[in-house]
């Protein structure tokens, strides 16, 4: 088990996938992180040297991920609502925000778009 940013990852897991388990890190960000520390794309968590773990943790702690990012997103939605914008209203109504059609296929926004959006 290897600790990265306070999370315990099994050694057999792919490092790239493990990084992507953080909220705010996707395919591109994780690849760029790996490239930055010269870690090959199929590296397992267990293969990391101690220094690399520390480096990764240091960089990750600088980044706006997990709860910081969640809070920011929620604040953005809140700001939109409070300033009375159309986008804010759509968030509150649980409807698509970016001009999609509403005749069909709006299950995802109905499920997700709220004032207190689930992230």
């Amino acid at each position: 088990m290897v600790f990265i940013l306070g999370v315990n990852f099994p050694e057999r897991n792919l490092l790239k996938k493990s990084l992507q388990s953080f909220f705010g890190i996707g395919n591109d960000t994780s690849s760029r992180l790996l490239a930055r520390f010269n870690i090959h794309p199929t590296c397992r968590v267990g293969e990391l040297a101690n220094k690399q773990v520390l480096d990764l943790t240091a960089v990750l702690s600088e980044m706006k991920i997990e709860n910081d990012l969640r809070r920011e997103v929620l604040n953005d939605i809140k700001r939109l609502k409070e300033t009375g914008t159309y986008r804010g209203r759509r968030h509150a109504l649980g409807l698509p925000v970016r001009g999609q059609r509403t005749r069909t296929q709006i299950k995802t926004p109905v499920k997700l778009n709220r004032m207190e959006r689930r992230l």
Partner: protein
Amino acid sequence: MASPWCWSCLSPLRTPRAILPSSTTTTRITTAGFHSTAVQYAMPAKKNKNSITQLKYRQGQTLRRKKKKATENRARPPAIGERKAMRKRIVLSNPNALEVEGMQELSPETMIDNRLRGSVLGLPVTMLDQLRAVQAFKPRQGWNIFRRPGTVLRRDALELGQLFEKISGDDPAEKGKVVRKIITGPKGSGKTVHLLQAAAMGFLKNWVVITVPDAYELVSGTTSYSPIEGSNPPQYVQPNATSALLKRTVEANSKVLESLKVSQKHAGLENLKPTMTLKDLAQLGLGDAALSWPVFQALWAELTATSPAPGMENGFQSRPPTLVTVDGLSHWMTKTAYRAEDYSFVHPHDLVFVQHFLSLLKSDKPTLKNGGMLLYATSTSNNPSSYSLEVGLDQMIARQDGVSPTSPDYPAPEAYSNADPRVLELFKPTAASGKEGVLELQTLGGLTREETRGYLEYFAQSGLLRENINEKWVSERWSLSGGGIIGELEKLGRHVSAPAKLAQPTPDVE
């Protein structure tokens, strides 16, 4: 309230929303805001529930039945790595196959014997472990259908044997020569097995055999890499891959390496003693991956040394020739899956491991000072397209045909083709210096009819074929295999087919 009619054109005006009585709660809009049809069409009456057809929007009129649930497979999945192990497993013997009587073994004598051309020579059983160690066998080469592994002594193999004989022979003009070859050929023409034969002959002649069984592994991003500090442009070592190379080399060549002592001083490896053998030296790199690259460099320096460093003379033995084989060359001519720190792709020639082996192809500097052979084969089964390599190989063909590099007929990359200059640089002609031979291109083709016959007779003797092997039948197989392509012959040999004989027109029938 305003009139709902426009008095100028007598058309009904739309009622402004603002003056409509507003409902107190905002209801969810379930239908679209604009309709050209009445609401009743938008919300048709629900049909009877137990009807089998509840047609939805844009559904076909065909009968739909519920699919049966697939039965769950409750068997335990194979353990981690088990599937891969099965895939990569190499079986070299089949007890059901018949023992071929009178089968000769590959030996320093038989490998240059022209009389044996076309016969299948068994690989010495004692050598199999060495060959396995250098990963000369690949799965799906058909080793598992015979009692013991053997290879055909075809023309190319005989020529190879004669080269081995010359380089490690006594003739001072030929001894210690370096032969460089790039091996190409159509699919199934035996390029990898040619490398295997070279490795086997190398072992027979007590050479040091260093192999890269799959060039792809070094560029596919599956092994660790780290930049060399202070290198500009950045170069990368691959410690685990180098360590694996050392492991292969040590396992396969332990007898040779044990007999040789360290004779040079190496930077970065201070704790070396002159009493250590080269095997001990190589094993340093096995334990510590970080050390593997310096250790490999040290090993290489030892193998190419012609005389001991001052102060380390005791017990210096002259180094044997070296055989280097690489399979899947074109992977080293395209981009890698590795990324540099700025997220750009790493060029394969920036990997020092790759660069080391590619630099050996240049004949202007002495590389293998004790002689040896470099065989770099292309692959057709796992083959990235590399335009630059194609151009380079074309240039080599042109040079071998006697086209001067300055003539207009000499192949050049097309304008705007974006050919890789570093790859093209590799194939630029270099003069042969001393015993360094120039880079040659060898294209493997099919077997001749006699060789085909020998190969197929081996199948028959192993109990795989029931047919009468005669001239006609062999010719037929030869044509069917695209002119004696050995991989296709192997397919035909194990392919159980109905005999394709139809009666000749007999007089009484007509």
